């Protein structure tokens, strides 16, 4: 190895830690979701490429600031008013507003999710009457916010679509169920529970839906292995997909 090899990131003092506020400036700052090390999947002494010392921080999208543009401002104003009518300050319910790829995301604190979506559905100026269900994401390195539930809501009345994102820690994987507001989420929440282990409190019958009832574990979590088997072909062995070299 040449002298230009970067110093071992493990010993660096300014080591970024996943889940930590980058700027330490509170909720609106970007947070580190994941820290990637090295490249080409090589870790340890086998690395002769010099890329093993690379450190790459993946951060959350920065919070958007006004004006958001388009109908986003209008809708957010209406939402703040609707929440205030229900005795819930918007700053308390909404953690952060993110705009990426022309889509608006409201990051909502889980304890306020039900009044939040109720306002979205019932307020005539908002009228998000259509819920496309919930999708989960598991960020194992995002300390305190490992599990995310992502809802996509559409207002057919106003022709608008938004995303609502709620997070919960892995140690307390509870998010309130919104089946009482959007009955369609019955199966969607069962699916997310099945695959991620997020417990949707208040769901009428939170059981597994796609995996067998007696299955152990939640397969879509990142710590759940793919469990492939090696395949032999003409004398050579192809390793299972999760054992192949990765390029992340």
């Amino acid at each position, binding site marked *: 190895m040449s002298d230009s090899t970067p110093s071992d990131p493990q010993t660096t003092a300014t080591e970024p830690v996943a889940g930590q506020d980058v700027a330490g400036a509170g909720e609106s700052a970007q947070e580190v979701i994941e820290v990637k090390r090295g490249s080409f999947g090589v870790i340890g002494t086998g690395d002769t490429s010099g890329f093993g010392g690379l450190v790459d921080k993946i951060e959350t999208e920065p919070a958007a600031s006004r004006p958001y543009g388009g109908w986003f401002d209008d809708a957010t104003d209406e939402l703040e008013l609707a929440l205030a009518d229900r005795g819930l300050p918007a700053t308390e319910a909404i953690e952060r507003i993110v705009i990426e*790829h022309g889509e608006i995301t409201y990051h909502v604190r889980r304890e306020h999710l039900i009044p939040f979506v109720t306002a979205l559905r019932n307020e005539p100026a908002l009228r998000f009457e259509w819920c*496309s269900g919930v999708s989960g*994401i598991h960020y194992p390195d995002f300390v305190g916010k490992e599990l995310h539930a992502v809802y*996509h809501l559409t207002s057919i009345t106003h022709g608008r679509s938004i995303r609502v994102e709620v997070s919960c820690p892995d140690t307390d994987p509870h998010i309130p169920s919104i089946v009482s507001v959007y009955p*369609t989420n019955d199966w969607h929440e069962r699916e997310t529970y099945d695959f991620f282990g997020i417990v949707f409190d208040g769901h009428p019958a939170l059981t597994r839906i*796609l995996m067998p009832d*007696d299955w152990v574990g939640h397969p879509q979590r990142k710590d759940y292995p*793919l469990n492939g088997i090696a395949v032999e072909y003409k004398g050579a062995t192809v390793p299972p997909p999760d054992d192949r070299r990765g*390029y992340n």
Partner: protein
Amino acid sequence: MSDTTLDFDADVDASYTVTGNDWQTVLPAPEGEKQRIVVNMGPQHPSTHGVLRLILDIEGESVIEARAGIGYLHTGIEKNLEYRSWVQGVTFVTRMDYLSPFFNETAYCLGVERLLGITDEIPERATVIRVLMMELNRISSHLVALGTGGLELGALTAMIFGFRERELVLDLFEMITGLRMNHAYIRPGGLAQDLPDGAEKKIAETLTLLRKRFKDTSDLLVDNAIWMARTKGVGYLDLEGCMALGISGPVLRATGLPHDIRKTDPYCGYETYDFKVPTENTNDSYGRFLIRLAEMQESLNLVEQCLDRLRPGPVMVADKKIAWPSQLAIGADGMGNSLEHIRTIMGESMEALIHHFKLVTEGFQVPPGQTYVRVESPRGELGVHVASMGGTRPYRVHFRDPSFANLQAVPAMSEGGMVSDVIASVAGIDPVMGGVDR
């Protein structure tokens, strides 16, 4: 009860999967009640559209409770995607809802392209061919809905007609992509390959034939007294029910709401095409059948418009960091990389060889972020939630399949009706279990 009766109060850590003959040991016989019978319709039953299990609690011939059991076709596609490159993902998603593969592929690719920020750089010809393939696919999918729906209700001729016409469309798919199903034809950035020689002429000929034959199908069924008796007023679900249960597609449009994502949230340039969104006000299976017939006509018109718009040009983005480097060609040993391309990278340009190697083994990187893309599949809103962590593999891909959501309407549609109407209700929903279970 026998010794095998389960003791639910016992403090044991176990759960039971109730299938087939186990019901007797699990459910104690009702006392002082009218006798109810629990019927397992499926998972292996010809009229449940694949491996759908319907658990019907019946009293005589009336359905008291209906529950759908799913998961028999779960293949873990979403998990598998996280271990493949972005391009390989297409090969997986095309197998989800296997009757509408082009919709799965397009929705996934639109999501990846949005994350890459290349939505506006997709060549016009690629987008037109995507629309063309999707509309042909809508026809072939609706033909299966009509064919199997007819078969389940005893209209065997409808099945013969439906599958005969579908075969014409599948022939086009085979000619263009090489496969009848599971095409992996639409790729992030464009298409796997251009239309073959003579494809436009063949499509135009097929359109003429389909127009003639669709008339036969509608003549056979639209005013057919038996067909109407089996489907009119059956599987009733109104707009309020659809909104609450998240039902989209023909079921929603049969309530009179002209909600079609091609119109409300256009993609692939649908706003520039001339087509109507057929609706009915019947809220029943018959209305859904009429809507599918009308949509097939609209799709024929759309395919015609696509043919008019086809202009020569590339079918893949120009960015060589994303575009798959090689072209397919027929060689002595079958379809493979074109010899011309191999000659260039092996003999003339080392950079091209490196690019080819990197793209094929490693794939391209997609910037971190998430997006949600929806398309109007034959069954309704097909949504794809794609999240990237900046790597060469998807971090998470979730498909919001319309069949999955629409199946939740089975209890609302069939409870209180006859057992035979359950079949008409499910046929009206037209679920595809490959998409439901993924």
